[in-house]
């Protein structure tokens, strides 16, 4: 009796766990950016408690602005990291773009929009050269872009001094087209009495566009495939080289947007700026769940990473902590955010 009860009277359907339906919560927890999201919420609540000014709408607009100047680049850098490559030249490439536009327009007394167009071409070309050298030499992107980083640092200084006669570019505030260019790249939009910088909207738009490309288009699949296993991807017909060159050029485009903001927010650029910022962009992407090895990550994650960085950076000021400890707190916060990220992701994967 007992033995017959265990025998199935009819064959139960075989359940394959690979095609089993996951609950919406589970699939949410499996997303690369969820850890960062939790970290961001924790940080947000934390600063809301310790810094009363943090929650003021105008303060929040400042936090968003600070985040957007990192986030715009983090979009491109996140895509590139998903595609399995690294770019150390991004920080100075932003300034190269700004310097190109500024010096060219100034030297020839052109309408600034000419310089803006040329800067776009130069930024895309820098990305193209990075990607092309990478594809031709098969050297690690770390080396190739480190070389570009050094060369651009030198070029920024040398050309600015050679053409402008000073290490800071001359002011272009009186050139034709400056006002309209400033309106496009560095204005502020008033929403319910709060001034929000236009970069915040560019940032959001670029994140949405990048997410759409990643998740809904063939190019997005190529990016994941190229970063996951380039050889396997090539074997199934993914144009790995073109994808990677394209990604470097996308980073160049992001650099152009931020470079133009840098130029038109201030009308002059210091040629030594930008060094070290490349790490902030990479940090934002990593906090947002992009793997350093490629093939995994999301554009939204990079945005949340930038937002975490912006909150930590500005929140410390709003909390009025002793400035001597600033860098220490910043580092600690980044570490905690990434650990939370890791824990949440592991939990999600175990389920």
């Amino acid at each position, binding site marked *: 009796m007992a033995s017959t009860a265990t025998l199935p009277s009819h064959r139960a359907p075989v359940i394959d766990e690979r095609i089993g339906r996951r609950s919406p919560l589970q699939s949410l927890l499996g997303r690369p950016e969820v850890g960062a999201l939790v970290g961001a919420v924790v940080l947000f609540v934390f600063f809301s408690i310790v810094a009363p000014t943090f929650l003021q709408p105008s*303060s929040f607009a400042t936090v968003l602005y600070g985040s957007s100047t990192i986030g715009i680049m983090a979009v491109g850098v996140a895509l590139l990291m998903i595609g399995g490559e690294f770019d150390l030249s991004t920080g100075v490439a932003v300034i190269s773009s700004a310097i190109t536009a500024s010096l060219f327009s100034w030297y020839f007394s052109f309408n600034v*929009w000419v310089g803006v167009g040329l800067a776009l071409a130069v930024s895309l070309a820098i990305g193209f050269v990075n990607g092309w050298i990478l594809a031709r030499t098969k050297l690690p992107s770390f080396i190739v872009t480190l070389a570009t980083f050094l060369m651009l640092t030198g070029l920024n200084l040398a050309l600015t001094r050679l053409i402008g006669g000073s290490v800071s570019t001359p002011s272009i505030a009186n050139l034709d087209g400056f006002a309209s260019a400033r309106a496009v790249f560095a204005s502020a939009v008033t929403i319910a009495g709060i001034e929000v910088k236009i970069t915040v909207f560019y940032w959001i738009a670029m994140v949405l566009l990048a997410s759409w490309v990643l998740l809904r288009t063939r190019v997005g699949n190529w990016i994941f495939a190229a970063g996951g296993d380039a050889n396997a991807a090539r074997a199934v017909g993914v144009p790995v080289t073109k994808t990677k060159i394209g990604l470097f050029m996308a980073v160049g485009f992001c650099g152009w947007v931020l470079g133009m903001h*840098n130029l038109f927010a201030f009308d002059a650029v210091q*040629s030594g700026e930008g060094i070290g910022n490349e790490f902030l962009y990479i940090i934002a992407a990593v906090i947002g769940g992009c793997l350093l090895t490629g093939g995994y990550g999301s554009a939204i994650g990079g945005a949340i990473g930038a937002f975490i960085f912006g909150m930590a950076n500005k929140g410390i000021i709003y909390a009025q902590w002793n400035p001597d400890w*600033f860098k220490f707190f910043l580092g600690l916060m980044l570490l905690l955010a990434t650990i939370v990220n890791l824990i949440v992701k592991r939990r999600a994967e175990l389920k």
Partner: protein
Amino acid sequence: MLKKTWTRGLATLALVPMLALTACSAQGGKPADTAAGGSGGQVASTPRLKVALITHAAAGDTFWDIVRKGAEAAAAKDNVEILYTSDADAGRQAQLVQQAIDQKVDGIAVTLAKPDALKDALKKAVDAGIPVVTLNSGSDVSAKLGAFTHFGSDEKLAGEAVGAQLVSQGLKHPICVIQEQGNVALEQRCGGVKEKVPNTEILYVNGQDMTSVQSTATAKLQTTKDADVIIGLGAPFTLTVLKSIADAGSSAKVASFDLNGELAQDIVDGKVLFTVDQQPYLQGYGSIDAIWQNKVGGFRIGGGQPVLTGPAIVDKSNASDVLKFAQQGIR
């Protein structure tokens, strides 16, 4: 398909600037050359000297352009060839001093931002019989390290001058914006301000990223509502802080250290209260000239004391006089 759109895109990129060639700006570009570089003056008949000018300039700081201009003016007059090198890293700056000794220069002008790192290299220079002049920073250790004179402004003194000005204008709660955390000279400036105005707060910003300077200063102003003045420690940073004031809707005044053309204009326009100029042109000019004087007649200017090139206060009363020199890049 993809390729075609690419080439078309590139073609448009190339075309747009060409079309815009006609779109010249009516104003604001590079001024047409007007007999530039005409020094015209007599050059000293002394034999040509080779002098190394070694600074700790971070790449891209406009301040050092002015120092170099002063040095070049003295060099042109004194028949001196200047070998200019710089490295923000103290260890590498010491190597530059060593290289200058190897090149058997006739004199060394060097900045002492981090004196301990340069001590040994300078001793070698003195032992080799090369006259050494220090400039900009390090007035207190200059003589001890073997330099026969020093050209510079005392940073703490400059800070106190700012503090005294603030007090006289009735300002009580300054924010002192330091663009490079751990830089001794910058800390001394804010320390000097704090000496006179005890309620001074220090704000550290990332000087490598102007947008970050702007947003961080905005954050500070939003949270410190009772701050009545904010001080930039360099002309470009002060200009950026001005934007933060607008962003934060703050009513705080602005004061500054150092000078450039735009800052001078802002002082004339009343947007900035005043700035403290350490007259970097004189530092470059004086140190090269002092080496020439030393070679010519064994002169030692300064009587064993540092020669002070500042602080000189530039405010609304004298800014319009300074403006044209600032625009020429010598103030």
